């Protein structure tokens, strides 16, 4: 079931069908990834829709999503495969009189193999979308494990030999840039930097996700958030926080951003007290008058 995209425009509209608004750059890079069979490395601040892109790709292409969530300490046994040693032990015990030769071939075979996400993606009969989420979290040593897979979509299991992918998965790696990924890994990927959306795109996202929001109001919210992101702070508002904010404003019955309502709802958008204070100061808002205790 190959992907039948002929132009980046096709990518764009099929992603839109899955509820993801891609800009021209994203559409172009996804298109290239599909044509060149290369993984996409999506990097950018938290909450701009890197993971959402992979989810939308799975939906748009009607493929199963296989997700590997990375974390510090992730190892081969959790990422690739593991022998089910409990089951192996039971097998040995239940058959005490048996010849070793019979047993050996037996306990290192399919039924005793535990598939982890990477192996699942490679052995899948149907093509999948493989999401390797927050790849910057793993240690450098584990990163090396990914290289063989990204290169040729194959893995080597000593007892079973080399397993090569039957179908070509679409691979998306995401990174929050907490540490720089190795050159070797980057070289194998198409790099997609996803920054905060432009005002136009964020407005479109708002309109799609909060349908009750009037056009004018969405524009105003998008502009205000873009303006707030210019202020240096610990955690700039992400797209999902913009959406939360818009919903809050609607729920409060607002139809325009007055200084008062902005001041009293800043805590929806910003998560650190210092950031709220800083922003209020920059926008000359009075948060003491309007601050609500929760």
């Amino acid at each position, binding site marked *: 079931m190959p992907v039948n995209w002929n*132009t*980046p425009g096709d990518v764009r509209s099929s992603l839109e069908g899955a509820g993801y608004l891609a800009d*021209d*750059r994203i559409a*172009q*890079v996804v*298109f*290239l990834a599909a*044509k*060149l069979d*290369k993984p996409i*490395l999506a*990097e*950018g601040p938290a909450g701009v829709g890197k993971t959402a892109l992979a989810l939308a790709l799975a939906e748009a292409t009607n493929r199963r999503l296989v997700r590997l969530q990375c974390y510090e300490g992730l190892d081969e046994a959790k990422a690739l495969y593991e*022998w089910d*040693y409990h089951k*192996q*032990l039971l097998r*040995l015990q239940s058959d005490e009189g048996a010849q*070793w030769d019979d047993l050996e071939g037996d*306990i290192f075979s399919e039924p005793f193999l535990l598939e982890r996400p990477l192996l699942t993606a490679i052995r899948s009969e149907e093509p999948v979308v493989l999401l390797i989420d927050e790849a910057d979290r793993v240690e450098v040593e584990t990163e090396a494990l990914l290289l063989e897979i990204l290169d040729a979509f194959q893995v080597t299991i000593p007892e079973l030999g080399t397993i090569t992918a039957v179908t070509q998965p679409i691979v998306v790696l995401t990174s929050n*840039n*907490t*540490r*720089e990924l190795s*050159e070797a890994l*980057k*070289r194998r*990927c*198409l*790099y*997609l*930097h996803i*920054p905060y959306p432009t005002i136009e795109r964020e407005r479109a996202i708002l309109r799609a996700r909060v349908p009750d929001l009037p056009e004018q109001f969405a524009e*105003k919210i998008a*502009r*205000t958030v*873009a*303006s707030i992101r*210019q202020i*240096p*702070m*610990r955690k700039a508002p992400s797209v999902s926080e913009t959406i939360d904010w818009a919903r809050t404003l609607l729920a409060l019955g607002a139809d325009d*951003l007055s*200084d008062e309502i*902005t001041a009293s709802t800043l805590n929806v958008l910003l998560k*650190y*007290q*210092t950031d709220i*204070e*800083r922003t209020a100061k920059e*926008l*000359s*808002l009075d948060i003491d008058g309007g601050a609500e205790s929760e």
Partner: protein
Amino acid sequence: MISTLAEFVDELRAVGIPVSMVEAIDAAEAIEYTDLGERENLRATLGATLVKNPRHYPAFDRAFDVYFGLEPIGDVTSSSHGTLQPADGSGAGAGGSDGLLDSLVEVLMGGSGDQLRRLVANAVDRYAGMQPGRPVGGRYYAYRVLRRIDTEELMARLIAALIGDGPVDGLDARIEHERAEELVQQVRDQLEQEITGRLIADRSRKQVASNRRLPLVEDVDLMHATRTEIEDVERAIRPLARKLATRLGQRRRHGAKGRLDVRRTIRRSLGHGGVLLEPQFKRPRKSKPEIVILCDVSGSMATFARFTMQLTYAISAELAKVRVFAFIDGLDEVTDYFSTNIDFGQGLITMSRDADIVRRDGHSDYGRSFTEMWDRYSDAVTSRSTVIITGDARNNYRDAGLEAFERIVNRSKATFWLNPEPRRFWDTGDSVMSTYSESCDSVDQVRTLRQLEAFVERATLPVMRRRRLVS
């Protein structure tokens, strides 16, 4: 196309962006799947295949505009009467008298991009005074045109047009101000594009590209950085600080093995038919690093000190035990000014106001500062502490205070010194770098982010603290 691509890749490498052979080939292959009718598609394709670090995109965009930018409307010679115009319009309201400002406001408020292009090209014709073969850079021509347009006046007119009768302060006004800034930036970009295009026609792409090269953030000289450069650098610091924090925590407690790992022991035993031959142990936990930072904040170090403080601020967000001391000719603890729930800029202000770091004349006195450190804060340094000192070691011919310094070094687990001065100036004049450097675990020149990154990569803690005798 391939030869232009090769030249473009060369240019990226010249800026300092690492582009491997494989990536260049990927780019060539990817171009076949790119609709070249739209320039931005090509930008996306080349960006995704050649540039893998967000910090490098500004430099990439600059080079891209030179190699694949729009053709200019005019050429170098179409500005032949440019020398006449300035004399003609040098009276009052220079920009306004020829209606350029009015047309700009009109086009920016509701015209098309194409109209803007033509208008800007027209302004270049009239005011840039471009001459074929003249060995000046594009910035000079752009400056001449911008001076005539009068960007401040343009900004004021745009704001007036955008806000109308609306409020002059508050949220709305702020947003309109930003929109006006965006529009003025559009004019600047368009102007650069037009001038660059004309220069390319006059010279070679290669030459124009190297004139217009934008240095990478990691190569910005921190001692002489501009405001915007500093901001870029500060944005790039956080991942580095995190890396440094993990590196310093990485060395495991030696000698001690962790507890028995039952799962892995049984797993391993399967190789021997279930006999527990090789006990497996859990990895010992990583030690929690303690960091002590001593920062020279005297006048000669001002820009650099800001950078160090930013680094410190970022590190303290990662690690619990960080103590910071600032000194000039006296030393004071400033840790609390930069704790995580305080805004960085505010911390700087509080520090310069409240920190007690000037004893006499406000010129660096390392000896006195180290002595004060030892006398007042010796409890801050323990055998688990890593001490990082930032300063140029210019001691104004005062006593080096070596005894106190060596006591600090000896008690610490490791001591690193970062000196922003170029290595060749060390030990010249009043610099006493080598007096201190013998005791340190390493002394590095750190003047750019790239050098800081190299230090972070190398910074490993010694396995065993060498005891030194205090002389």
